[in-house]
């Protein structure tokens, strides 16, 4: 069986797992689990084979509908965005933290939104929400430019406001994040994932798993 691992040092990396389709390995080779992996190949550019040992099962997520939707969205987006064998250590670390939060069952949804912001940043489509792109002010930031990904204040937006994307306060770290605001934040990140990043990755549609998570959260909000 060919499996793809998200690794700290080598990014998304595929390899053959002998006996990977066996019942013994089925529980280990589940998305979200953490494994210790040794990869061997005769040449660097070969597919190679993995020897895996389980380190941490996150099977507890299976019983939580929303967390499972989150896990599916993260795995699908990682596979969608990451090129093979390109290290993304900070994204790996933030993904690990998010998987742990999903398994712990706490309030992981704001963390998921931050993870998507981090994913955009890591892939070179980061949002600049520090100050207004028009006035330079740090106050009353209310919109994001769909072209530049920079924040725009209410005063700076003027008559262009209807053409800008609403910026929820939770993305500025202001006030408690309600589920409605987080969904608004996910629509914002979704715009940049789908309209800016996806066309550069072969113009494929964003994975449906992400939209299913957003829809699920919207219904709960």
């Amino acid at each position: 069986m060919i499996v793809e691992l998200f690794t700290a040092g080598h990014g998304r990396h595929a390899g053959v797992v002998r006996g990977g389709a066996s019942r013994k390995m089925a529980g280990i080779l589940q998305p979200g689990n953490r494994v210790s992996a040794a990869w061997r190949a005769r040449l660097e550019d070969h597919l190679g084979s993995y020897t895996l040992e389980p380190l941490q099962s996150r099977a507890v997520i299976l019983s939580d509908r929303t967390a499972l939707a989150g896990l599916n969205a993260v795995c699908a987006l990682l596979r969608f965005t990451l090129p093979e064998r390109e290290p993304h250590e900070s994204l790996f670390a933030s993904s690990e933290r998010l998987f742990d939060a999903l398994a712990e069952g706490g309030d992981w949804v704001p963390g998921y939104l931050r993870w998507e912001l981090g994913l955009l940043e890591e892939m070179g489509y980061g949002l600049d929400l520090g100050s207004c792109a028009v006035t330079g002010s740090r106050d009353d930031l209310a919109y994001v430019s769909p072209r530049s990904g920079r924040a725009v204040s209410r005063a700076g937006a003027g008559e262009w406001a209807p053409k800008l994307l609403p910026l929820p306060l939770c993305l500025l770290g202001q006030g408690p994040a309600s589920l409605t605001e987080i969904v608004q934040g996910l629509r914002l990140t979704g715009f940049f994932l789908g309209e800016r990043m996806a066309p550069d990755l072969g113009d494929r549609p964003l994975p449906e798993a992400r939209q299913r998570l957003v829809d699920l959260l919207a219904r709960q909000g």
Partner: protein
Amino acid sequence: MTGGRDEIEALIALMARLPGLGPRSARRAVLHLISKRTQLMGPLAEAMAEVARTARECARCGNISTAAICDICEDPKRATGEICVIEDVADLWAMERGHAFKGRYHVLGGTLSALDAIGPEDLRIPDLLERIREEGISEVILALNATVEGQTTAHYIAEALEGSQVQVTSLAQGVPIGGELDYLDDGTIQAALRARKAF
């Protein structure tokens, strides 16, 4: 190479495509069949030809049958208020081996997969929802695998049935019969602990 060897090689190549068989085991199986041409190979070929001609998917549940509607769906003794949802026909046969379930089945033909981009419209989920409405089903038993994909599918179906009068249940997860805690993975132990019951 003697005459007729090509046909035998072609048969070996076909047999080697069966699950669990490789070229060497396929060669052994073909040699065994040839050595028992009249007792085994002839009847096997006839049975295979007959099944190849008649086998089809049950129009109601998705089981494999030689009739338009399978024996299970046609059986009047089967409870009509319960549907057991399974991933594929192998799971249906496994459930039937247990003789524990006396209702009817619905075979999805796979599971939702975020990584392989398999959505609800690729499975027989719309058919299931229609059956539940039309057949007045009172309980849906989700007998899907305890994998990320299996449970994603289970949650999707449960969510689609929210607000209806249908009771949605799922198979228990935990320690298998004959299982020893020392050999279980930590995910199974967690699931078993969560699903503990009064003793």
